[in-house]
């Protein structure tokens, strides 16, 4: 049995932990609002871009299609671009992403494909390294900036496209969480390169004039599309990080509260026991006289 003093120390330490988790929760809640607003602000651009892509991709097909759209003609070497957070304290978010990435890798390897990884964010490195150390080709550090934004997306996309042009891989997949709510972030995998041909939404009769021609525009558009996809993933990860962090810290705060209550009861009981023992000693002493 711990002494009264030890118990008191324990209660105080749990209380200060609770203060930290509570503060982190409130910070995450505030940041979540900002991250969600950023994700919403990015939507119009992405929608427009895919609409234009859809109308163009339908027109340019066959041999004239750029490589980013048509692919290299083989699907032997796959690259998994895994987007993780840089900081912890966000519950099972990162381990869920890593789990999804490993699942994809396992399925691809079982199908006889070559798999390599390109890691974005710090937290995915260690767990993926454990299983697939030799397959990690490169990683991108987002921890130097506060909020990874379009500049980072541009850098990542440029590097990926350069790797593609150099013939380092045939197919690239992007693994990131989609933010559903503060409670749920689903890991998702989408094909990044070659750009999946979007469904042609509406075949409007209007004759659109192109300047320069369709192919040139499409060739210009595809890298932008890849950038936008990566940017979208970065926005999703930051919203998911804050959401998951908020939930995890809320749970931690509540658990700390429960623990404090339990420890306080034990503390009070022991104090009462000590008082009772003292009383018994006094009474016994008085009776003996």
């Amino acid at each position, binding site marked *: 049995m711990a002494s009264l003093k030890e118990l008191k120390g324990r209660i105080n330490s749990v209380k200060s932990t609770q203060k930290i988790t509570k503060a982190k929760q409130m910070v995450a809640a505030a940041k979540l609002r900002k991250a969600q607003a*950023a994700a919403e*602000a*990015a939507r*119009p*651009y*992405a929608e*427009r*871009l895919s609409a*234009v892509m859809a109308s163009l991709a339908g027109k340019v097909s066959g041999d004239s299609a750029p490589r980013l759209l048509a692919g290299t003609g083989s699907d032997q070497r796959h690259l998994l671009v895994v987007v993780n957070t840089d900081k912890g304290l966000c519950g099972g978010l990162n381990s869920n992403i890593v789990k999804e990435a490993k699942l994809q890798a396992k399925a691809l390897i079982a199908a006889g494909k070559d798999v390599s990884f390109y890691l974005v964010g710090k937290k995915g490195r260690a767990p993926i390294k454990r299983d697939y150390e030799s397959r990690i080709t490169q990683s991108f550090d987002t921890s130097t900036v506060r909020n990874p*934004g*379009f500049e980072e*997306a*541009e850098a990542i996309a440029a590097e990926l496209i350069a790797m593609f042009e150099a013939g380092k891989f045939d197919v690239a997949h992007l693994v990131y969480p989609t933010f559903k709510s503060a409670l749920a972030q689903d890991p998702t995998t989408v094909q990044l390169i070659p750009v999946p041909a979007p469904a042609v939404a509406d075949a409007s009769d*209007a*004759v*659109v*004039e*192109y*300047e*320069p021609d369709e192919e*040139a*525009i499409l060739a*210009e*558009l595809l890298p*932008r599309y890849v*950038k*936008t996809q990566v*940017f979208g993933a970065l926005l999703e990860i930051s919203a998911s990080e804050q959401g998951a962090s908020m939930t995890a810290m809320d749970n931690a705060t509540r658990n700390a509260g429960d623990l404090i209550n339990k420890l306080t009861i034990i503390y009070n009981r022991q104090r009462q026991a000590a008082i009772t023992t003292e009383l018994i000693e006094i009474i016994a002493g008085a009776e003996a006289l």
Partner: protein
Amino acid sequence: MALHFELVTPERQVRSEDVYMVVVPGTEGEFGVLEGHAPFMSTIRDGAVQVYRTEGAAAEEIQVRGGFAEVGENGLTVLAEHVEA
């Protein structure tokens, strides 16, 4: 007589308003867009988009980098990667 003009970057929607005319720096030359322009699509070079709110008004210049312009039924949309207002 108003042209609906939208300027969008990946980070946010910069402009969405009705204007008189917009002059866009296309890759193959500048072009002005008025209401009722035929459907048209062009990549743009780095430069200034000039927005004329009303006929004869002074142009407001917005510097854009990287992107393309699309003229459709519902006006002109400029998608630019970077905008310096």
